[in-house]
């Protein structure tokens, strides 16, 4: 079961513990890349830090806003399946706090923002 086949809710650090062993989408600003390149830390809109672990070491230096899709491990780290950097050179700057507020809203009103597998024809 690929992480990419299931719905993955957007979360921030404070929600990691509720999503252990589940697929999530985590968005934050890259803080520090481990010297081995196999993991890096990200800061979310609330200023909290999470660790992202990769299957293969990074080939380039990572910085800026990154969106990671992966599973949350028992230890609360995100085992990344994919990640993508948001371009900061184009368009309006990304407002991480505003994003965090939106994520909070999504989780405060699950009845309006349900996470379901889309029924396919």
């Amino acid at each position, binding site marked *: 079961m690929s992480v990419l086949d299931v719905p993955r809710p957007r979360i921030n650090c404070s929600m990691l513990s509720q999503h252990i062993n589940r697929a999530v989408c985590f968005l934050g600003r890259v803080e520090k890349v481990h010297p081995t390149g196999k993991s890096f830390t990200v800061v979310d809109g609330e200023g909290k830090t999470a660790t992202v672990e990769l299957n293969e070491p990074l080939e380039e230096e990572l910085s800026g806003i990154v969106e990671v899709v992966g599973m949350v491990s028992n230890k609360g780290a995100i085992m990344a399946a994919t990640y993508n950097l948001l371009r900061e050179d184009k368009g*309006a700057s990304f*407002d991480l706090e*505003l994003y965090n*507020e*939106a994520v909070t*809203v999504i989780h*405060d*009103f699950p009845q309006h923002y349900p996470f379901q597998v889309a029924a396919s024809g």
Partner: protein
Amino acid sequence: MKLTEGAIAALSNGNGGNDPVLQLVNIRKIEGGNGPARFRVMMSDGQHTLSSFMLSTQLNYLAEESKLAPNCICILKKHVTNILKDGRRVVIILEVDVIKSAQDVQGRIGDPTPYSDGQNKVQQSAPVPASRPPLQPQNGNEAVNRGFNRDVGKKAPPLAMPSTPGGGSKVVPIASLNPYQSKWTIRARVTNKSSIRTWSNSRGDGKLFSMELVDESGEIRVTGFNQEVDKFFSLIEVGKVYYVTKGSLKIANKQYTSVKNDYEMTLNGETSIIPCEDSCDVPMVQCDFVSIGDLENRDKDAIVDVIGVCKTVDEVTRLTTKSNREVSKRTLGLMDMSGKVVSVTLWGEEAEKFDGSGQPIIAIKAAKLSDFGGRSLSASFSSTLMINPDIPEAYKLRGWYDKEGHAMDGMSLTELKGGSGGGNTNWKALADVKNEHLGHGDKADYFTCIATIVYLRKENCLYQACPSQDCNKKVVDQQNGMFRCEKCDKEFPNFKYRLILSANIADYGDNQWVTCFQESAEAILGQNAAYLGQLKDSNEVAFDEVFQQANFNTFVFRNRVKLETYNDESRIKATVLDVKPVDHKDYSKRLIMSIRKMAAQ
């Protein structure tokens, strides 16, 4: 007949009882000099007597018709106890019912003794006017004391006061001034001083200046002519407190002023104005603030006092008036706790010197309300602008703004042309147009929405307009190579293409047909009218392509809606005033705020 024993003691101590039954022992007329007579009354409750009752002048007829006569029994229905500067108390009788007339009563009930509240100022003899300090008039049941409600906008009719003997060095409230009493002194702050104005007519020349004085009880307009201008104009400084005495009072000419007082004062040869050192408890200003949200309910041209947070402020601009005078102008957005924002225009030096940084609290006295853009305010020459005034309303606003107000967008009462004055927008969803019956009122309604274009009518979107600079009237094709403009009354060999684009826009809830004129149409289509006109005539495919590309784009639309009636049929007409790309951050913030607000309800 049972009298209410203990009532005299209670009244003397300022604790008015409930409708005490008293016996009138004595009533004495005191000539009022310039004004109506006053009646001094001695009352008994069977236990004590008290001679410091005064009949309010509206009840003089009771004494004159001998309804109130020694020995009659009455119920004191309404009264006010005033404490004089020397500690003595005077009970003003405002309403009294005679329940047993004097002739029906045998004599004095009980054996009352004069009540003394420790002051030993028992007066049985006729009071000599010279020894009686002035009584203060009342606003209904309110005792006039210091520490008055600062927002007193209502003015009670002043009751005639007994003459203040001996030069009247006791200070009386402005609210008590009237033409019938001449010996008074007020202690007031100057809130506004005009410049010296001169005139010259067949009867001669003259000069005058005017000012407004304020104290805890109210305000009054004061004018000085000729010699008084020389005597007082330079002495008086706005914001300072003065003792003023011996001015002439007359009925106010409300045409020239919005000051809330039935009377106004004129300085004369006997007037004296002396600076007062101890001024801290005289209020700075007398304002009757109207909530910004209420301005919609006021008539245009009304004069109002407002107070609010200066949410936005524009750069100062200069414009030339019809009389070719150059004048400076600046607009600011004022918001209060009603959540509504109104545009305020400042002029001249006030506009130039204004510093709106830091969102100051702005109070304006006597601002002029206009229906420009819906509702807007102007600080005219007779308005007083105060920045961060030292009044409780200002502190309340500051506290509210710091806690919640700063996060609010505020709904603007003023529709500004060409781009909002920084965040004053009335956001609506398209369904609201029908649900809230926008445009159904006397005036058009303005709102802003985010919507997607779902249809553009490309047929007849272009018309041939007069090529003159400021004329956009449709020209008539004379079929001879000439085009006639009826408005300019001229013929031209050419025309300019202009756009009137009919579009349907939609959001999650509803759709709306709107008309877009030149600027907004060009913004939506991404091409100018001239080019489109050319395309239409030469390359239809390319012309169609423009419309294809423009379809399904989302914008921020600012619209004007009005109900219009054609031959018994009423329809809402919506016009697009401005089109802007969506600011997603702004939109997200608003959505989150709406969600949170809805959740809290």
